């Protein structure tokens, strides 16, 4: 005879295990934690998951996650609308926002070119980007894809595509992390940093 309680628990563990970064051990821990947590706490967790899923969608402009039609960044009148930074993932928007160094808008592709995973240009929000370029007054597109093979291929694809769109296309610099030690930098990063070296501006001398 199958114990109905153990099936319920097993089901919960299985579902938790499918979440990113959660292995079988963590799934088990979380499941047993939930079972020993106060009823209303668990209800609140469940309802915030359901509400978030229900209400969050893609911004009609930049395809970032948004609660209203337009995300908070796109609807902010103080942002520089002439500059658009193209990133792979909504998490990259968070990362760049944390720097406080960028006041433009974003465009989220939701992935990178990756034939092995069946991702081509149609699977990315590239047509949305092209539509923006003809509809908005964009002067510069900053390519902020990841510095790996797929991210670089995606940037290269976009560079070619944007070639005759009449916008400046720039890419993020590659180099050394601030606050780190030269000796701990990997050879590839250090090599790129050497290739991308700059003359000190007169003001710094």
């Amino acid at each position, binding site marked *: 005879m199958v114990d109905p309680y153990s099936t319920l628990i097993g089901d919960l563990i299985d579902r938790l295990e499918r979440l990113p970064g959660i292995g079988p051990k963590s799934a088990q821990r979380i499941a047993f934690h939930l079972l020993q947590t106060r009823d209303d706490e668990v209800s609140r967790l469940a309802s915030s998951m359901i509400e978030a899923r229900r209400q969050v969608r893609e911004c009609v402009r930049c395809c970032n996650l948004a609660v209203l039609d337009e995300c908070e960044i796109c609807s902010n009148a103080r942002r520089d609308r002439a500059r658009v930074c193209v990133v792979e993932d909504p998490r990259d928007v968070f990362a760049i926002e944390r720097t406080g160094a960028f006041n433009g808008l974003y465009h989220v592709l939701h992935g990178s070119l990756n*034939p092995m995973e069946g991702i*081509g240009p149609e699977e990315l929000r590239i047509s949305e980007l092209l539509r923006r370029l003809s509809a908005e007054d964009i002067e510069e597109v900053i390519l902020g894809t990841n510095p790996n093979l797929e991210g670089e291929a995606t940037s290269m694809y976009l560079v070619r595509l944007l070639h005759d769109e009449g916008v400046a296309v720039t890419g993020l610099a590659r180099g050394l992390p601030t606050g780190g030690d030269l000796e701990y930098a990997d050879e590839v990063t250090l090599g790129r940093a050497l290739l991308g070296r700059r003359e000190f501006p007169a003001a710094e001398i």
Partner: protein
Amino acid sequence: MIRTGVEASVVRGEFTARGRRMLVAVEIQRQTQRRRVQVNRQPLRRSSDLRRELATVVFQPDDLQIVKGPPATRRAACDEAVALLYPEAEELQVRLGNCLRQRNALLRGLTVSQRRGPLDVSISQTLDVWDERLAMAGTAWAEYRIRALEVVSPLMSQIYSRLNPGSSTFVELSYQPDWLGAGLRASLAAARREDVERSVTTVGPHRDEIFWSLLGMPARTHASQGQQKALALAFRLALHDALSATRGQPPLLMLDDVFSELDPERRKILPRLFPSSQVVLTATESYPAATRESEVVDVTALLLGQAGWAAAIS
């Protein structure tokens, strides 16, 4: 080798490299067949990192296949030489492999109708990007191959002629990919139709032949088996010499059953070609008198079916 009935095999060694002592332990698990490497009791992230710490050059009887086998074996031997001589090229090799896999995945993902008719603009633009990435990585890798062969080939020719005194010998390893003239980017573009039809990348460093020639003739078809074995051995010894020169520290040379692979004449000569650094030899019978051994380990007792075998495994 893992003893029958046991889960894992461990080999430990103590080395002196670049003036410091190293304790190296390699464990092979029977179940996973994975190797775990520790240096000074610290696990290495990848077992291939050991190459940076401690270079080794190994000759095995199977090395005959480098000369005799299909082009892939000569590419692998050449790429091994690149990896040993230029450790910084490792990232490039990984990138090249990934570019190739991505391009092939794109080709395989095309539908039958896409494959027959003229290519969609969006597909051909995506292919352009992978062509470009592959061309960059492939061209850079080809340059490394050429550089490595330019170092190894003359050394190998010298060693081979010392192994064959009195006969005329000229050995050359060369790499001249067909695509080099037009460039890989243009060659990939020219091959696109065929690549699309066959769903595979037909041009590039992964398809090239590395020519091993003896007196200007291809060694694969024109050299005798004895000459082929001697060529494979000369390649390993030349790689050892090249590494000693570039690293300033001779790698460990391991010759597995080398004497039974050679004819009597070359057996007598080989010990004179040994470097002054450490050489580890295995042999199934006696070895030439000229071999100056410092230590002999007799492992006959471990041989399957020999007296003492049962005692050794129990």
